[in-house]
């Protein structure tokens, strides 16, 4: 047990280190810009004295490592500075959009995960059947499609031809849960289709890999019934790869929302980030980037830790 705790702690520390390096890189990236925030805000006509004074006000005259610590501290307290393009506090804009993005990703995940796992398991168990061939071809097609293609096909059929769902998401804070769910059906469906395809292929591959291991063959040669082999021998060992697959796809989902949000003009974090990149509104890009990157790093960390816990073999690495 001690060994397990030590391994998990080690992986956790590594994750925190990654997070630390990621934040430094994002911070430095914005710092190395020609000119700085003060010049960017005041414009080219500003006198050198005004720029210097403003720089002092923004604490840009401090050395970089102190500014980095200040930035991180402010960030963790929810104080992310002001946007260059409209002068509003970034935290206010991000707060509501982050909730929307998480809502979209969570809804998509709650549909995609069970569907993908069941389909992947079935495809692996009935390998080379017509069902397997059909799902294999259709998932291959789905992962080859860009997200916006799937999105526009759905819009064409479900929104324009038969007017079931709205093609743009008008999300308002006061809406009820069901009303909100109705508004996000199309973006949610798009994300679900893309992730199900990825997740199903990975689930199928890892289950097939498992079924070809020697102890399954042994059970088969002993003459055990298929049901017993699957429930007693295969499934307990399938837990670790499946958890890994799910966590990896959740990480993908969080970032995958960016394109989908733009298609449906969804008021989420991804849309904000893309808008800010084209306006070169760096403080906003910095904040969104840090949030996206840390979510991604954390989900990967969770995937690894769960894999260590659920797979005894990883606890005793051969040196």
């Amino acid at each position: 047990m001690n060994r397990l705790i030590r391994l998990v702690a080690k992986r956790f520390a590594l994750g925190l280190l990654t997070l630390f390096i990621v934040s430094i890189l994002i911070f430095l990236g914005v710092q190395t810009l020609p000119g700085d925030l003060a010049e960017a805000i005041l414009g080219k006509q500003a006198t050198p004295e005004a720029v210097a004074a403003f720089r002092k006000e923004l604490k840009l005259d401090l050395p970089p490592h102190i500014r980095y610590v200040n930035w991180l501290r402010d960030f963790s307290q929810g104080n992310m500075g002001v946007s260059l393009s409209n002068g509003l506090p970034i935290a206010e804009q991000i707060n509501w959009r982050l909730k929307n993005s998480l809502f979209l990703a969570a809804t998509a995940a709650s549909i995609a995960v069970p569907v993908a796992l069941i389909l992947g398991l079935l495809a692996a168990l009935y390998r080379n059947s017509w069902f397997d061939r059909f799902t294999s071809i259709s998932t291959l097609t789905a992962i080859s499609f860009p997200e916006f293609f799937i999105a526009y096909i759905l819009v064409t059929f479900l929104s324009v031809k038969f007017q079931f769902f709205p093609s743009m998401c008008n999300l308002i804070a006061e809406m009820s849960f069901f009303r909100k769910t109705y508004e996000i059906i199309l973006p949610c469906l798009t994300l679900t289709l893309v992730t199900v395809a990825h997740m199903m292929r990975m689930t199928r591959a890892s289950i097939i890999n498992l079924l070809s291991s020697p102890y399954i063959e042994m059970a088969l040669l002993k003459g055990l019934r298929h049901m017993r082999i699957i429930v007693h021998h295969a499934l307990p060992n399938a837990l670790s790869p499946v958890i890994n697959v799910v966590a990896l796809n959740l990480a993908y989902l969080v970032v995958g929302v960016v394109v989908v949000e733009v298609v449906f003009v969804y008021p989420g974090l991804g849309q904000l980030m893309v808008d800010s990149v084209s306006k070169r509104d760096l403080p906003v890009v910095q904040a969104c980037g840090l949030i996206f990157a840390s979510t991604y790093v954390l989900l990967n960390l969770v995937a690894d830790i769960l894999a260590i816990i659920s797979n005894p073999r990883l606890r005793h690495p051969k040196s």
Partner: protein
Amino acid sequence: MPFLKLMRKMSLTGRIGVGIICLNLGVCLLAPIIAPYNESAVVGDVWQSWSKRFPLGTDHLGRDMLTRLFYGARNTISIAFLITSLAFTLGILFGFLAAIIGGWVDQLLSRVVDILMAFPTLIFALIVLSILGTSIPVLIMVIALLSSTRVYRLSRAIAMDIGVMDFVEAARLRGEGLFWIMSQEILPNTVAPLLAEFGLRFCFVFLFISSLSFLGLGIQPPSADWGGMVRENAGAITFGIMAPLLPAAAIAFLTVGVNLVVDWLLHRSAGKVHEGL
């Protein structure tokens, strides 16, 4: 001909894939000859329907859709191919170096790659593009760097396996240099897995650059490019006009083709794997 011989060995889906790739390459090379109009010539009304004059209608400025699609193939595919090749050169070079030299070189390169892979690719690209601005060279460098990380991992792993074999040892004892060992002893033995990876990476890069263009941050107008064309014509979708679906379908078509061939390549190498249940 070796090509025809290979085709005969291929599965049906593999052959379809090769057909799709050849068709796209043909369009790429012959775009100026087969396109009915000039790349950015305005020749009709906005979003006209399909007719004899405009086989696939016109786009949001009244340019011929078919012409734009042909030129778009040229721009998008050639940039994606350039990026993938660059990523492979970088990835294989550093991957082999890390595997052969080992020690601190391996440690350093592997940790840098770990950090790059800890970033979600799209977010990394968005941050870099917002700092350096959107231009084709920046785009090429960023995506090539990001996709070279996976090539690095793969080629390092393969080179590790091959590097301990007797014939490499023999070459070392003969006193061959680092470059000789990399290019003459190891590279020829890694062609099959790297080829499949090239296909996969190409798909990834191709979709990635299309997504960036779709977000308005990739290849800039007036150059025709498939992702950008979807973005420009997106407004037509609410009128039930197919204009944005055509370039999107073209992207999907080529990616499916490459994936079919890659699938066949992977299946062929995995064919030996024992069938369990």
